[in-house]
């Protein structure tokens, strides 16, 4: 039996609903809020601990019922359950605002046990967001995928992102589930900063005359760099030659664009340099800096510079940004399609 007392009060699986009611009726100083179901699937006891801590970060910003599911495939079936309330105080004197957390530790034939366990714990009529935190897709039944409205995953964790994304698409099958790749979310602020540089008529012309792109990324962050390049390619109508590598040429409306992906120690993305005959735009981020420095230099040598908030390195902040952003991620789908071969 797993000893995961930090998950709250241990309860019988069949009594979860009843025990939750007791939990809320016991204390009138708390109020409950739910806008969506937020399930996290992870593996092992360590995964349960890490993801339970992760959930703590979202309580003040998002109202959800959390269903934390730890899995341990094996021969003997067993399920343990815990319930807990996660609260914060919005202001002095106010009621604590709380979300409920149901935690399940599932051993044995996970694929068979999981669908009913998950479905029975969802708050009715609310969408389901699933945060995927293990390499355990073979344990997921097709029935579960059909219920998922938004699937959050991190392709940076994957060893073969291209194949794994293809497999994921095949498993999801429905085309309805919104794919939310944290490797993409991790570039949100950077994309905003870069996009802003091309808001003026003069700079837009330069955008369409781009001749080279250089992106420096940290080891293990290649998928973010590839998606960033895919974003530029998809939005600017470039088509790629070849199927991989770190140095390639793309074809744009005004000619070839030389693209380089460079791995070097530092932030997830430490440099983006976009060059055209009219101007060069650079976004640089020093290691551990909270701001990105964005600068333009035109062909006459004139420069403009400003700072922008940088993307956070913390998983909690990135998941929080993803939960906040919402949307269908159509641009992500286009970026992925434009660069999938490079992943």
């Amino acid at each position, binding site marked *: 039996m797993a000893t995961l007392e930090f998950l709250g009060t241990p309860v019988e699986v069949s009594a979860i609903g009843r025990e939750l009611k007791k939990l809320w009726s016991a204390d009138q100083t708390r109020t409950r809020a739910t*806008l969506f179901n937020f399930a996290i699937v992870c593996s092992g006891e360590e995964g349960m601990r890490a993801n339970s801590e992760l959930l703590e970060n979202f309580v003040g*910003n998002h109202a959800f019922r959390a269903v934390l599911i730890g899995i341990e495939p094996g021969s003997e079936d067993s399920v343990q359950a815990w319930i807990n309330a996660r609260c914060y105080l919005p202001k002095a004197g106010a009621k604590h605002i709380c979300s409920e957390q149901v935690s399940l530790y599932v051993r044995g034939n996970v694929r068979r046990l999981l669908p009913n366990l998950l479905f029975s714990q969802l708050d009715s009529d609310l969408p389901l967001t699933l945060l995927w935190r293990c390499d355990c897709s073979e344990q997921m039944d097709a029935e579960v995928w059909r219920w998922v409205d938004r699937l959050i995953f991190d392709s940076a964790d994957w060893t073969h992102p291209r194949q794994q994304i293809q497999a994921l698409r095949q498993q999801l099958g429905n085309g309805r589930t919104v794919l939310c790749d944290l490797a993409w979310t991790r570039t949100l602020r950077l994309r905003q900063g870069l996009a802003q540089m091309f808001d003026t008529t003069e700079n837009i012309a330069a*955008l369409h005359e781009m001749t080279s792109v250089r992106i420096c990324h940290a080891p293990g962050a290649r998928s973010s760099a590839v998606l960033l390049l895919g974003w530029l390619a998809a939005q600017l109508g470039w088509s790629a030659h070849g199927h991989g590598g770190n140095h390639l040429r793309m074809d744009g409306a005004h000619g070839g664009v030389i693209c380089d992906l460079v791995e070097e120690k530092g932030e997830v993305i430490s440099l983006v340099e976009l060059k055209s005959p009219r101007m060069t735009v650079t976004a640089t981020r020093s290691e551990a800096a909270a701001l990105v420095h964005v600068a333009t230099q035109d062909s006459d040598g004139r420069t403009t510079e400003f700072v922008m908030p940088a993307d956070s390195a913390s998983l909690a902040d990135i998941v929080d940004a993803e939960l*906040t952003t919402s949307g269908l991620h*159509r641009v992500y789908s286009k970026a992925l399609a434009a660069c999938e071969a490079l992943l």
Partner: protein
Amino acid sequence: MKLRCTRGFAVSSCAPLVSNDIHHNPLREGLSNRAMPQPCNAVIFGASGDLTFRKLIPALYNLAADGDLPGASNIIGFARREKTDETWREELKETTAKCSRSGLNEDVWGSFASRVYYHRSEFGDPAGYKALAERLDALDAASGTRGNRLFYLSVSPTEYEGIFNQLAAAGLNKTRSGAWARVIVEKPFGTDLSTAQELNRQIARAFPERDTYRIDHYLGKETAQNIMVLRFANSILEPLWNHRYVDHVQITSAETLGVEGRGPYYDKAGALRDMVQSHLVQLLCLTAMEPPTSLSADAVRDEKVKVVRALRPLNPDSVGLDVIRGQYAAGSIGGKIVPAYRTEERVNPQSKTETFVALRMHVDNWRWHGVPFYMRVGKRLAKGGAEIAIQFKEAPGVLFNTAETPLGPNQLVIRIQPDEGVSLRLQCKVPGSTLRIEPVKMDFHYGTSFGKQSPEAYERLILDAMSGDATLFARRDEVEEAWRYVDVIENAWHNSATPPPLCEYASGSWGPKEADELLSRDGREWRRM
């Protein structure tokens, strides 16, 4: 209360509020569903004023901190006092650190402040505007703001004409092709219809209506914006939103505060001009308007102005019946004794200015035939808050709602501030073997469901002006129509031989008893907030 909701205006579920056809930056797709603010030089007239320090600069700073302020934008403060860029920046930093909702980050401030400049000039000095024009041209060249100009008039309305004339004389109201010059003016938009018309004429001589942004910070509040979403994004409400199902509507804006040092201004304005003509009429319009044909600024404002035009005109006799005015006497609030209005600092001891108004209004159109709209606004009331309450008609008097056991009506309340949210009162059976029915409240709180802090109203509105989205700003005809309605009341109060009485109410109460009688005559009562 559970709500299925894609938080905020998610791209997936909601169309952008306006299309962004001014420039086409393909990299902007998907990053935000709102129209994009364009880089500009923002000139604040009244750079030394309280509003600039407490609201405008902190709002602009927060936009920069959130990455929403176009990086190339510059901010130029225009005022009479002798200051340098550096001294103004230092002063602004100090107050921004206190007033900014996100605090102050040194690096962000450093980058932001490097684009903040001070321009000293008298408001009527042509040379000052000529120098401003040269400075803006130089900033355009250096920053790529391409001639976009946003003028924010945070000065007394008496300065408007001089400023507009000088802007026009220096050619600052016009800009190069493909760029824009816009002006934001703060309320009060006049003190009556004729002054509002005169003000609008002054503005129109310098700026076309499409480039004029009359700011009403109430409309920048999250809940005010949510009124349209609530009405037109929920199919269950709109069929009920008419005279067949609605008994009446109450709009309340209550303050516990007194005039708080604004005595000289308030004593001239009063509650009717200060609040009803602007904020409360805007709330009434959002509540009563027909669905607009689109979310474009003019489509929305066309529908709003139709509501004001449909307000049943008052005459001196009906003012006495349908409008109650009051002034606060001494009383106690929060356990403290507070003075009467007439003994407040810098207030005329014989003042006849109203600090409270209650009105019964009718929107004479098909949808609202026979549905009264009650409005009340006041200072030094029992409790602070602003809300709109839609009271539905009672259930038929059979089965449960009988003469022996009358049930209260259903009520939908949209809370504007504080504790923004929506609640619905329903009747429910009390558990037990006997049949007992009690009202229960389904309550949605923004703060509970959406933990994130809303941006300040000024942030939203400044960004809208930079984006060319005037939806949340008042249009000339809206303002003038509202004055036309309010002027009849002002005239009956101040120019009549037999003016209706100015009723006294104790500070800390819910206003004069005559306001209660306004509703009790109709067999109704004010909602208990």
